[in-house]
């Protein structure tokens, strides 16, 4: 009876550890370079949702944020080309290398499909004096340097969109002061509180405020108006006399040299998804994108590559211009803040030094009781140094070895160092590693490496 129970527990612990040889046979990771809740994250999660349906394996989105997009793009494109990491790429890939932030560019991937292209747009508050682009242009000509705008970080996509518009009407990019921010949400908030005059971002990002008429869209930087219901009324820059367009794009790619069969398999799935042939819970991907106001233009492999090449060249031209070498944020240089923090730290160290010396005097004058110190044994020192060693070894070797063997080894070692009995240590190693594995991969959809055991 007891052995039956135990074997039942073991089976449960190792559930889901079977593998076939066909691709895909384990969970896929989709890297998203931007934070949860934003436009790219929403598109990533939707496409992951439909890919799960098509491929019959979990597709987990991870938000690898930071470095203005460098982190996420690097994670996705420099991953192992085994088809189990998909990268969601955005427009910023075409900008980051021109800005010297990374060597990564569009040539270092196998492009699969671009999913979306949202044009930049200019927004003002509903109670603002500007109702047409002409009024805005006049204000910029007459009072350069007075108007303030925001939408993203300095030299981010929307900043360049605004700057490009200014250049196309023969103005300097600095004629409108750009206030850097973390993204469209905080920029819209800043505009609503009266801190800035204009926000440049895409329509889906400003949707809630637009729908409730708290802001107004002055112009769309696209060739044609939007076709989604409710959004057709926004005029393009072209209609208002200016020939400048810029759109943020999002698309999926694989790391370079991923096998062709895997690329083909994913393309088949993606084709079915974007043409609305895959339904999940009564909705297709095109229907979702329409309902949220996302553009649905898609381009397959070669077209996608050609599109990225053009986009890359446009940004190269823009960013090499003299005016942009000057466009840096604000009067405070980048090293001011860390220097201030370091100075504050140094002052504190000095003050602490004073305090310590004062305290030494008072302690010496009042000889108090000291708690007897328990001596530390050799085994304890070994355990002490083994802790960071274990963490380092894990990070270095777990991809090769696999999670379960690595975790079991660590658990076993420490249990023994802390004087557990051999049976207890082995039980802990086996049950503990299996339990942690199930919790993280099963429940929380965090990918843990399979390694030697193949799980």
């Amino acid at each position, binding site marked *: 009876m007891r052995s039956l129970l135990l074997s039942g527990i073991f089976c449960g612990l190792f559930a889901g550890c079977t593998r076939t040889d066909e691709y895909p046979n384990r969970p896929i990771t989709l890297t998203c370079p931007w934070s*949860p809740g934003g436009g790219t994250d929403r598109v990533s999660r939707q496409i992951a949702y439909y890919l799960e349906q098509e491929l019959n394996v979990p597709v987990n989105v991870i938000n690898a944020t930071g470095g203005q997009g460098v982190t996420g793009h690097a994670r996705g494109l420099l991953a192992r080309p085994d088809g189990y990491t998909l990268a969601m790429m955005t427009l910023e890939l075409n900008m980051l290398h021109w800005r010297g932030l990374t060597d990564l560019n569009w040539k270092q991937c196998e492009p699969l499909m671009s999913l979306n292209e949202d044009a930049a747009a200019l927004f003002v508050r509903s109670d603002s004096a500007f109702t047409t682009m002409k009024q805005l242009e006049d204000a910029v000509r007459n009072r350069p340097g007075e108007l303030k705008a925001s939408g993203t970080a*300095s030299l981010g996509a929307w900043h360049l969109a605004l700057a490009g518009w200014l250049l196309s009407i023969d103005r300097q990019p600095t004629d409108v002061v750009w206030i850097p921010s973390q993204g469209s949400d905080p920029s819209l908030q800043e505009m609503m509180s009266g801190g800035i005059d204009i926000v440049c971002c895409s329509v889906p990002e400003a949707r809630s405020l637009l729908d409730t008429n708290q802001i107004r869209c002055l112009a769309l930087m696209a060739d044609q108006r939007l076709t989604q219901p409710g959004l057709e009324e926004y005029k393009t820059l072209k209609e208002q006399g200016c020939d400048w367009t810029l759109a943020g794009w999002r698309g999926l790619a694989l790391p370079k040299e991923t096998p062709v069969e895997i690329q083909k398999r994913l393309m088949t799935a993606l084709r079915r998804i974007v043409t609305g042939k895959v339904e999940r819970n009564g909705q297709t991907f095109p229907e979702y994108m329409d309902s949220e106001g996302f553009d649905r233009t898609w381009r397959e492999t070669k077209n996608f590559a050609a599109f990225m090449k053009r986009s890359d060249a446009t940004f190269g031209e823009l960013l090499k211009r003299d005016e942009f070498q000057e466009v840096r944020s604000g009067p405070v240089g980048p090293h001011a803040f860390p220097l201030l923090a370091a100075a504050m730290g140094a002052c504190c160290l000095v003050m602490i030094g004073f305090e310590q010396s004062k305290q030494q005097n008072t302690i010496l004058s009042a000889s108090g009781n000291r708690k007897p110190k328990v001596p530390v044994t050799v085994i304890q020192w070994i355990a002490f140094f083994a802790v960071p060693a274990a963490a380092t070894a894990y990070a270095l070797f777990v991809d090769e070895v696999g999670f379960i063997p690595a975790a079991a080894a660590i658990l076993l070692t420490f249990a023994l160092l802390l004087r557990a009995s051999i049976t207890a240590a082995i039980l802990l190693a086996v049950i503990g590693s299996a339990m942690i594995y199930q919790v993280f991969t099963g429940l929380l959809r965090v990918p843990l490496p399979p390694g030697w055991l193949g799980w």
Partner: protein
Amino acid sequence: MSDALQIALQNTFSPATLLAIFVSATCGLFIGAIPGLTATMAVALMVPFTFFLDPVAGVAAIVTMEACCIFAGDIPTTLMRIPGTPSSAAYVDDAYALTCRNEHEKTLGVSLTFSIVGGLIGAVVLIVAAPQLARIAFEFSSYEYFWLCALGLSCAAVVSQGSAARGMLSLAIGLLISCIGIGSTHGIPRLTLGINQLSSGISFIPAMIGLFGFSEVLRNVLAPTLHQPAAASPDGPFESHLKSAWNNVFGDAFGRLKQSIGRILTSSTIGSVIGMLPGAGADIAAWISYAVSKQRSTPEQQKEYGRGSLQGIADATTANNASLAGAWIPALVLGIPGDSVTAIVIGVLLMKNVNPGPDIFENQLPIVYSIYITFILANLLLIPLGFVAIRLGSQIVRVPRHIILPLILMFCIVGSFAINSSYFDVYAMLGMGLLGFVLEKYKVPLGPIVLGIILGGRLEETLVQCLTKSDSLAAFFSRPIAAGLGVLCISVWLWPLASRLMSLRNNSTDTTNS
């Protein structure tokens, strides 16, 4: 009863919604109790499940998951000294000190009770005053945010255990660490030493796990800190065992409730107001509330802060739960997310054709009422579920050291990996763990480091925004709210200096008199 309310009640109490609430409460408690997993991550994971559910059930599931996750974060905070959420870092030392004295059940009971009270008051504020209060969000420009960040950071530095100088040093370290990487303000790499992975900086979750959890493992290996209580054998019938367990957990808490009404109101107000501001959330609220709580206490009580003050824990946890409901105010009324969870929620709402904004009160009142009801329901559900979680969780303290320490080590490693599936985060955790170990030897508090890492970028960003808008320093006080916050902040800076001057003067009058 109005039609909308009736519809809302029907929808919320339908079997599907109630099941969704129950399941997400359980999952929320479980996920929140694992060090390294935040409420935002849990909600993001939950979004695919909401696709199956109708709008009411989907939103109800998210609300419940968030409330339970934030409370469950207190469990590793108390039992393992690993803050489950950044806001728990404000009282992690207090909570763990109490565990070492074998008072963990009482501590978790206080934490649970005051979390629920804070959550309920926050929900009431949301219900009663959302449209009016939302307008306040629009008064906050970069000047106000700058002073608010500065205030939160200053409170953390000044209020931490030990001298203000040590607290400030800790803050300075945190701010320096936050500068690592390519910031959004300047767009160039700083302090990255040429290492690619450092271009995104050091994430605060691996830092937190490392500073507190990993360093605790190191310390524990050298000298056990946890007192292993003798296993209490449950005598007698189940009901009396249950009753004594209930008393253990809640006995102290209920008594405290009656005595602390004033403090509860202060903390909830701080929590709701700060939660209401887009981008300012539970972490700032918890620290400011902890600071105010210490300020209001008598000098003997003040000595307890940092060493096991239940009052401090109570006040901080009230504020951080109240701020959750507050974050929904700008989200519902204006369509602007109040924090990262509501950012995800707005996406889900839009997908279900619920449009946040002032019109939501006219066009979709039933779902608004459903959200209100769910907030109250989720907090009430925490009473039984939280109790069970506490009882299960506190069994951890009974597990022998040679089993629990290796498991905690593994959770530290995998928990820091799990956020971004990045091995670099494991190294970051390791580095921060060693830093935390060394700093504790010199009695430098660790809490301000975490807040510095989280808010450093924001502080710099708002500073640059303010200076870009206008070169003069006077502009920082040009708007009324900004001026008020600025004055508060500066008085926090001057406080340690003032109290030292006063004590010097007292000493000198003593010596002259004697």
